[in-house]
Structure formats: structure tokens, C-alpha cells
């Protein structure tokens, strides 16, 4: 939501192209993530007795943060829907179907982000350290990984990506302070569908959910998308209690 608003104000006040504002919101939200992590979560990581306790408390803190941010945004910017005329609204024909150019661009940007992220996690030293900090926090510390720094960077990256998603969404849909709700829910459900901590799992889960949602909307009714997602989730969790990709 904040990412979307950043883009909106960049565009409305300064006329900055939404895709250019990615370069502004990126560093901004990365820093914000690092600061929030250092300010709030590091102490909690130290205080929590178990991973479960930490997860539960982090989840609650995040909901608290989102309450504060959403309602401050409402107070500042009102709850009205806003929109701007994003560039590239022209349509082109691909195999007889009309596509808006900006939707194609968004799809390409998303794909590129995921690809870069995958390569980063797979082939760089920092990426390796991140995966290690998730899988084996103690082991990672033993071999000299500063896991607190890694957590900060990961949290910063997480915020950066959500802000970017907000920007991309704002080029297609109108925005308001509560726009993040459905995306938060979908993201969380996809995480447990994939299994917490699996990157490839998340890609697969989001493809499954994405297609399921659109097929349901097209063939049945948009109110039933969550029913379909929950049905998939129930089946998966009964067969694989820790998600699709978690051993």
C-alpha cells in the first residue's frame, strides 16, 4: 500500500513515471525494513524461547504495524480510492486476444524480479547465507554468518518487494489504504501452501493459486475464489502437513 502511494504521489506531484519510481521506492522501503527489523525484531529474536514463539509474536507485531500504518494512511490521505493515468494503456493483439501493454510489462517485470531473486539466492554468497540462516540458524552462526544482519537484509528485501508489488498494482487498479488486505491474506495462504521458507515452493504455490483464482472467477464466481484456495490448501495440508515443498 505504501509502495502504491509512493508511486501515486511521485506521479501526481512530480510527474515521475511509475516504473521510474520503482528506483525511488526500492531503496526507501529497503531501509525502512532494515530499520524496523533492527528496532523491533532483533530484540524479539533474542528474547523468544523458541522458533514457534518468535513466529507467533512476529505475526502479531506485523498485524499491529499494519493496523497503525493503514489507519494513519487513512487519516492522512482519506479512505477514498485514488488512481492516476498510468502510461502504456494501449492494447495490442496477441493471437487474437487484446492485451494492455502495461499488464504485459508488469508480467515481465515480475518475472524478471523473481528470476533475479532466484539467481541471487542460489548463486551469491549473501544468498547462500540467507538460505543457511533460514534452514540452520545455529549452524550458520557457527560458520561465521552474522544472522542478525542477514535477517535485517531479508526483511528489507521483503519490504522492497511488497512496495514494488504495490507500485505495479497501482498501474492497473485504483488504490486506497486498505488495498493490501486481500494481498496479505493471499500471500500468507500461499506461504503455508508452499511450506514456510521455500522459494521455489512459493513460485509454484503462487502459480497454482493465481490460475485457480482466475479460472474460478471466469467459470464460477469471484466470491468463490477463497473457497477454491482453501480446498486446495486442505487437500495439500492433509497429504503434506508442512506444505508442498517443505521436507
Amino acid at each position: 500500500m505504501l509502495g502504491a502511494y509512493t508511486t501515486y504521489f511521485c506521479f501526481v506531484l512530480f510527474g515521475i513515471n511509475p516504473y521510474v519510481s520503482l528506483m525511488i521506492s526500492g531503496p526507501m522501503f529497503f531501509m525502512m525494513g532494515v530499520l524496523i527489523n533492527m528496532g523491533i525484531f532483533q530484540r524479539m529474536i533474542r528474547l523468544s524461547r523458541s522458533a514457534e514463539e518468535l513466529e507467533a509474536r512476529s505475526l502479531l507485531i506485523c498485524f499491529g504495524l499494519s493496523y497503525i500504518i493503514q489507519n494513519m494512511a487513512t487519516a492522512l490521505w482519506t479512505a477514498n480510492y485514488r488512481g492516476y493515468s498510468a502510461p502504456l494503456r494501449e492494447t495490442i493483439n496477441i493471437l487474437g486476444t487484446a492485451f494492455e501493454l502495461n499488464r504485459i510489462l508488469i508480467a515481465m517485470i515480475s518475472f524478471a524480479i523473481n528470476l533475479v531473486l532466484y539467481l541471487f539466492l542460489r548463486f551469491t554468497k549473501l544468498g547462500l547465507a540467507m538460505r543457511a540462516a533460514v534452514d540452520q540458524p545455529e549452524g550458520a552462526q557457527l560458520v561465521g554468518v552474522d544472522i542478525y544482519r542477514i535477517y535485517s537484509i531479508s526483511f528489507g528485501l521483503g519490504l522492497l518487494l511488497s512496495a514494488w508489488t504495490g507500485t505495479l498494482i497501482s498501474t492497473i487498479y485504483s488504490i486506497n489504504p486498505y488495498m493490501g488486505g486481500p494481498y496479505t491474506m493471499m500471500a500468507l495462504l500461499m506461504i503455508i501452501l508452499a511450506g514456510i521458507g521455500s522459494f521455489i515452493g512459493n513460485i509454484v504455490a503462487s502459480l497454482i493459486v493465481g490460475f485457480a483464482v482466475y479460472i474460478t472467477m471466469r467459470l464460477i464466481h469471484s466470491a468463490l475464489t477463497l473457497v477454491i484456495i482453501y480446498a486446495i490448501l486442505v487437500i495439500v495440508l492433509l497429504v503434506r502437513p508442512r506444505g508442498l515443498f517443505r521436507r
Partner: protein
Amino acid sequence: MASSTLRADLMRFSPLLLFFAISTLVPPLFGTYWSSLILKVLYWMTLAISWQFFSGMTGYISLGSAAFFGIGVYITAVFGWSYPLFVVVLTAGALSFIFGLVIGFVTLRLRGMYFAIFTFGLSELLSNTVLFWEMKMTGTRGRWIVAIDVYYPILLVTIATFLVILLLRRTKMGLALKVIGECEDTASHVGVNTTLFKTLGFAVSCMFMGFVGATLAPRWGYIDSGVAFNPIYSFMPAIMTILGGARADYGPILGAILLSLLEEYLLATLREYFMVVLGAVLIIVVYFLPNGLIGVLEKVQRARAY
């Protein structure tokens, strides 16, 4: 606590029992404003006590209370016209119990995080399903509810919930939930069937939420799926319990009283900022007071004892 007698338990709660006794006199003596305020305290307290019985005790955080509350609301909306309220309320509780069993069966073998996220979407799931049903089958949105004064029914539900949960805490299930909260591995090692007790405990807590929803429903007069399944009913009981002290039996009671009064005050003065304050309370409590206000009180008492 398990070793204390029922009598001692009731003695400990004598301030609360006194509060219940005074509550019976509020509508005739103090008029509508005070009775609506007390009503608010009572239903939030009931939801918080039910939430604490499972989620507070075990640490499996449920964010799905609104789903079970909403089932209650809708049962009253649909059947309240043709059947007496207590039949409707019991049906709603039974349905919430069964739905809780199913959800518990699917998710409670998993880690806490999976459970929290899974339950988080439930109210939205039911809300959308009901919406779909209404649009397809009846072509309407929302429905009128039979008008009944709910003050005494809610008071009755609150007292019943409090007493039943007080008794349940003394049973094998209550003890099992407590041990699971302290260390689940130990619990299963000493032969506690953790999945069974977690599922049952969750279903019981859902049942009480169904009772509250069904009893409270006539207050609105008219409801739709957005009112019935409002996520605030998921978050408030959790925040109240955590504020009071998640593992203490007085926790939800204290938290519910404080936050209902705060809500009343803020909604009258700074309406827009109530949710901001709620978020801040949540962060501060989780961050600084992991044992809630009861934890603070106990610390002060212990410091005095030395």
C-alpha cells in the same frame, strides 16, 4: 492451580461474580447508555475467555474467531424468526463446534504458524461463501433479524461460559491444554494425546464464540455477511487476552474490560485513531509485556513479598 479447590477458584473470582451480580441490575437502574456499555464489556469478555481457553493456554494463535462468531450470527438471522432464541443459540454453538472440529483436525497437527494463517482467512472464506449463496439463491444481500433485547441473554451466556470454562480447566482436557502450552514435546512424551485435546479444546472454544454470535445477533436488526464476519471479532479477543495475560485465567477478563472501555472512550472522541491505538497496544504488549498485565502485577507482588 489444578490442585486448588473449586471453592477457592470461585473465591478468587469473587470480584467478577460481584460484577455479574451488579450487571443484572444495570438496565432497570441506570438506563440504556450504561446497559449498552456493560453489554459490550460482557460480550467481549465472553469472546476473550473462549479465545484464551484454547489459544491463550496453548499458544496456538487463532485468528479465526470471527468465522465462528459469524456462524452464530447467521444462524440467528435465518432461524431466529421461527424458533425460540435458546434453541437457535444451542444450534449455532453445535455448528461452530463441528466446524471447529473440522478445522482443528486439518490444521492442529501442524506448527502454530500454519494454524494462525489458516484460521486468519476463515472469516473471509465464510463471508464470501455466504455472499455468493445470497446472491445466487435469494438474490438479496443481508437479512433482517428478529428483534429481541439481548442484554440478559448475553449476561447468561457470559456467566455460563465463565463457569463451564472454569470447570473445564479442572478436567483432563484443561490440564492437557495447559501442559501443551508449556511444552508440547513433553506433553506427548508423557502420553498426552496432544492432537485430540488440541482439536477438542479448539472446538469447545469455537462453540462458545458461536453462542455469543447467535445471542448478540438481534442487536443489529439487520446484518449482511460483512457485519457478521467482521475480522474485528477475530482480533479483539486475541489482543484483549494478550493484553491481560495470555496464560492467566484472569487475563482475558482484565483485558476485555480495559479494551472495551478504551474502545468506548476512543470511539466517542477520536474515532479514526481507535485502530491505531489498538495496533500500538498490540505491539507494546507483545514487545514489552509478554506475560501481559497480569504478569506485571505478579512481578510487583513478588517484589513486595521480599
